[in-house]
C-alpha cells in the first residue's frame, strides 16, 4: 500500500509539471516520463469519450424529440428566418473579403506584421466535465484533425476557450470563464489594452488591474487583442456589465458578460494560431480575387 501511495505521489508530481508545460503551449519542451504520461493521457482520452457520450445522451434525445415534435408551421418560419440571415451574412461576407484584402495590402505597405487565422476546424462538444470548479468541455476533434494544445476555440458569438489537452480524436477545452484562464484583450471603442480573467462563474469575467483613470463604459465591447499570438485579434470576448471605481483602490472593479454561449452544447470552431507573413499576404491576394469574383 505504501508503495502504491509513493508511486501515486511521484506520478501526480510528474504529470502536473508536464501538464503545466502543455497548457502553456510548450509541448516541445516535454521530455522523459512527463512526455510518456502526456501520450498515455492522449490515448486514454479516447477511451473516456463513450462515457461522456452516454452521459450526454438524454440531452441529445430531448433535442431530437423537440425537433420531431416541431410542427410544419414553425419549421417554415425557422427556414424563412435562416434564409434571411443567410442573405445578410453573405452580404457581410462580400464586404469582409474586400476589407481583408485591403487590410492585408495596407499592412504590407506599412511593413506591419499581419496576423490572420490560418485554418478553422468545426468541432462538436461531446462532453462537459462535471466539476463545477472547472469550466471545460470535450470536443470531437483531436490531433488527427490538426488540433493542438493552445489553439483558440470560438463559437458563433465570440471567444469560447482554448485547447489544453489533445488525443488523436478528441480534445479538452478550457473555457474563458475558468479561474485559470486569462485573455489579452482590448476595448473596441477606445483601443485600450487589458487582461480579461475568468473567476469560475459561468456568466461573468473580470477585467484585471485596470487603472481607475481608464475610459470604460457599461456596454463596451471587449475583443481579443492578438497579443501573445495565442488568440487571433478581433474576436468578441464580452460586453462590460459593471464598472465601479472606489476611492480606496487605484484600480477599476469591472466585470464582463461573455458573448459566447458557454453553457450551450453544440458546435464550435477551433482556430489555429496566426499565419505567417507570407501566408497572410497569400490570404490577402486570395481574398481580393474572391472579392472581385463576388462582384
Amino acid at each position, binding site marked *: 500500500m505504501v508503495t502504491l501511495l509513493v508511486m501515486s505521489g511521484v506520478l501526480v508530481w510528474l504529470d502536473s509539471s508536464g501538464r503545466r508545460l502543455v497548457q502553456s503551449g510548450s509541448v516541445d519542451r516535454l521530455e522523459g516520463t512527463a512526455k510518456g504520461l502526456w501520450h498515455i493521457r492522449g490515448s486514454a482520452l479516447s477511451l473516456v469519450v463513450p462515457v461522456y457520450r452516454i452521459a450526454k445522451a438524454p440531452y441529445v434525445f430531448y433535442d431530437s424529440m423537440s425537433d420531431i415534435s416541431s410542427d410544419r408551421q414553425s419549421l417554415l418560419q425557422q427556414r424563412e428566418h435562416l434564409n434571411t440571415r443567410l442573405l445578410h451574412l453573405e452580404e457581410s461576407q462580400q464586404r469582409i473579403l474586400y476589407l481583408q484584402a485591403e487590410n492585408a495590402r495596407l499592412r504590407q505597405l506599412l511593413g506591419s506584421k499581419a496576423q490572420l487565422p490560418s485554418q478553422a476546424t468545426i468541432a462538436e462538444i461531446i462532453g462537459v*466535465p462535471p466539476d463545477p470548479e472547472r469550466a471545460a468541455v470535450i470536443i470531437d476533434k483531436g490531433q488527427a484533425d490538426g488540433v493542438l494544445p493552445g489553439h483558440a476555440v470560438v463559437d458563433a458569438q465570440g471567444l469560447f476557450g482554448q485547447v489544453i489537452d489533445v488525443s488523436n480524436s478528441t480534445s479538452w477545452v478550457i473555457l474563458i470563464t475558468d479561474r485559470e484562464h486569462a485573455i489579452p484583450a482590448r476595448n473596441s471603442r477606445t483601443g485600450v489594452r487589458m487582461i480579461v480573467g475568468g473567476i469560475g462563474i459561468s456568466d461573468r469575467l473580470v477585467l484585471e488591474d485596470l487603472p481607475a483613470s481608464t475610459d470604460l463604459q457599461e456596454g463596451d465591447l471587449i475583443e481579443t487583442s492578438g497579443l501573445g499570438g495565442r488568440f487571433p485579434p478581433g474576436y468578441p470576448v464580452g460586453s462590460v456589465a459593471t464598472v465601479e471605481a472606489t476611492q480606496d483602490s487605484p484600480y477599476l472593479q469591472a466585470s464582463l458578460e461573455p458573448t459566447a454561449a458557454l453553457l450551450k452544447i453544440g458546435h464550435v470552431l477551433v482556430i489555429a494560431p496566426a499565419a505567417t507573413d507570407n501566408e497572410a499576404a497569400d490570404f490577402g491576394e486570395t481574398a481580393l480575387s474572391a472579392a472581385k469574383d463576388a462582384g
Partner: protein
Amino acid sequence: MVSNGLFMTALIATSLVFSVFHLPQAAPDWLGYCRPEWILLTLILWVQYIPAYRGGLFALMFTKNASDDGTTARRVLVVLWGLGFYLDTLLGDPFGLNGAICASIAFYLLRFRDRLQMQTLLQQMIMIFIMIFLAEIVRTYVRNSVTGQPWGLQPLAVAGSSMLFWPLYMLTAERLLGGQRRT
C-alpha cells in the same frame, strides 16, 4: 435476480456515467457541488458489502479461497490503483490521484472488514461520510496545488450527499441482487 458479474459491470458503468453527467442549464450552480461520489460509493459497496459478487472480469482479482494470505487484497489494491488511471483521465485529474484514493479506501475496508460487517446503517453512513470527506480533502488539496482550484465547501457537500444517498443505493443494489447481503 441478475447475474453477479453483469450486475457489477453495469453498476460500475452506471457510476462512471453518473460521475460525468452534467446538470441541465436551468439547475442552480450550487447543485453541482452536491454530486455524490458515485464511483467511491460503488467501490465501497463492492469491496465491503457484497464482495461475493465478483463474477466476470472481477473474478480475475480473486483467488479461489477468500481467506488466503493476503493475495486477494493485494490484487484488489493493485487493480483499483490501475483503474484510477482511467478515472484520472475521465475527471481530468493528474495521474495517480484517483488510484491512490481508491486503493486507500479499499485498503481500509479490507483491513477492517470483519468489524465493519457488524455496523448498523447509521454507522455505515457516518463511516462513508468520513471516508469520502477525507478523499475529497485529498482531491481538493492536489487540485489546489496543481491548478489553483480554491478551497470551498465542496468536500463537505460531496461527503454529505454521498452519505444521504448511501441507504437508497445499497438497498437498491441488494434488492436487485436477490434481497440479501452476501459476504
